[in-house]
């Protein structure tokens, strides 16, 4: 045997493809598969939500409302709001009880929590001058319940949370950033549906839709306390226009006779 000084062939042990095209391909296919998984899962979730029966919806809502502990006693003012809500709720065919509460807050806001609770701030009540305006806001919130928007946003965050399980550690913070976007905001479409529903409910409960757009027009004109509200609700002008179109389509009676609003 003779030893010949020769370097071994290392090429078999080293990557054949340059790292940059390799990584790009890998990253792109990873992102694509995440997107596809997200879309498919959302589609599945949507189908499930649409096929939830009222009874199931009621059970789910009761489950959630048990988790969210809220104020127990109601003031006279709360009861008044509740009366308006009940009037509208009768027209909306929702299988569970809706609870209305006033929240002490200077900011102008009204929101609905999963579980059937509606909150309206004292700030909002200050700029409301008629029962009709109150009804338009409440109707809008009831519309969200009707369309199961809360279940939807709930399940969206479940889906994104589920997907982030599969993503290795260091990038789950990245994904969390994305989940925050989709959490508390309803899409433009969902908001418009809620608007339409609010108008229909008003018409059903009051026989007319007087003052349906007044409050929204007020908010469109702008106000310093509105910032918070504006942040979570998209532009008003297009929504107001759509509401007016809807009123015209359905031939609702619209006059300026408003029921006065007594503040407690």
């Amino acid at each position, binding site marked *: 045997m003779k030893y010949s000084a020769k370097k071994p062939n290392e090429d078999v042990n080293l990557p054949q493809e340059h790292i940059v095209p*390799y990584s790009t391909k890998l990253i792109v296919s990873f992102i694509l598969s995440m997107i596809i998984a997200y879309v498919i899962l959302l589609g599945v979730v949507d189908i499930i939500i649409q096929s939830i029966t009222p009874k199931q919806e009621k059970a789910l809502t009761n489950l959630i409302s048990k988790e969210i502990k809220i104020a127990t006693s109601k003031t006279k003012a709360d009861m008044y709001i509740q009366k308006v809500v009940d009037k509208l709720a009768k027209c909306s065919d929702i299988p569970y009880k809706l609870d209305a509460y006033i929240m002490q807050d200077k900011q102008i806001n009204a929101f609905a929590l999963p579980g059937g609770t509606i909150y309206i701030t004292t700030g909002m009540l200050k700029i409301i001058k008629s029962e009709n305006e109150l009804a338009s806001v409440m109707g809008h919130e009831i519309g969200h319940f009707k369309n199961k928007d809360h279940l939807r946003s709930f399940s969206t965050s479940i889906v994104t949370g589920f997907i982030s399980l599969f993503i290795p*550690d260091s990038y789950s913070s990245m994904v969390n950033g994305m989940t925050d976007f989709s959490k508390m905001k309803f899409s433009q479409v969902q908001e418009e549906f809620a608007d339409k529903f609010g108008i229909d409910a008003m018409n059903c409960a009051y026989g007319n839709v007087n003052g349906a757009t007044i409050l929204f027009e007020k908010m469109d004109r702008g106000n310093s306390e509105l910032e918070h509200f504006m942040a979570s609700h998209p532009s008003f002008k297009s929504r107001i226009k759509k509401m007016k179109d809807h009123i015209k389509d359905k031939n609702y009676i619209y006059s300026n006779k408003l029921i006065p609003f007594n503040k407690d």
Partner: protein
Amino acid sequence: MYEFIYFLILLVLGFIVGSILEKKHFKSINEREEKLLNLPTITLKKPLNEENIVQTELVYGSVVVSIDFFKKFIAGLVNFFGGNIVVYDTLLNRARREAILRMKESALNASEIINLKVETSSIHKSAKRIGAVEITAYGTAIYR
């Protein structure tokens, strides 16, 4: 949003610096291998020629090599799909060659090194991923 940008910056930095350091290491490895070509290192258990042996000695070389952040990220993605983690190839290659070179360098006057064995152990940064790898190469140096 800022976390994402920070992450991207780390990735790019890891890639650039890591590539530079890796190239430097490979260059050094290639040079030293050229110089040490005349010291045969074989895995046979007995020397080629059993005459004139003055001394035998255990020699070993060990090295710990780590990879950059970018490669770790890619490895994480490949872990998701499965398959060969190609990016670690250069890591292992460098580590092995460096360990063998260090072993040779500790026996410069030897005629040959027999019974070469290479062993590895990974130093885990966290339970899941390989942070660095340690390779030990050892053999018997024969002096004539």
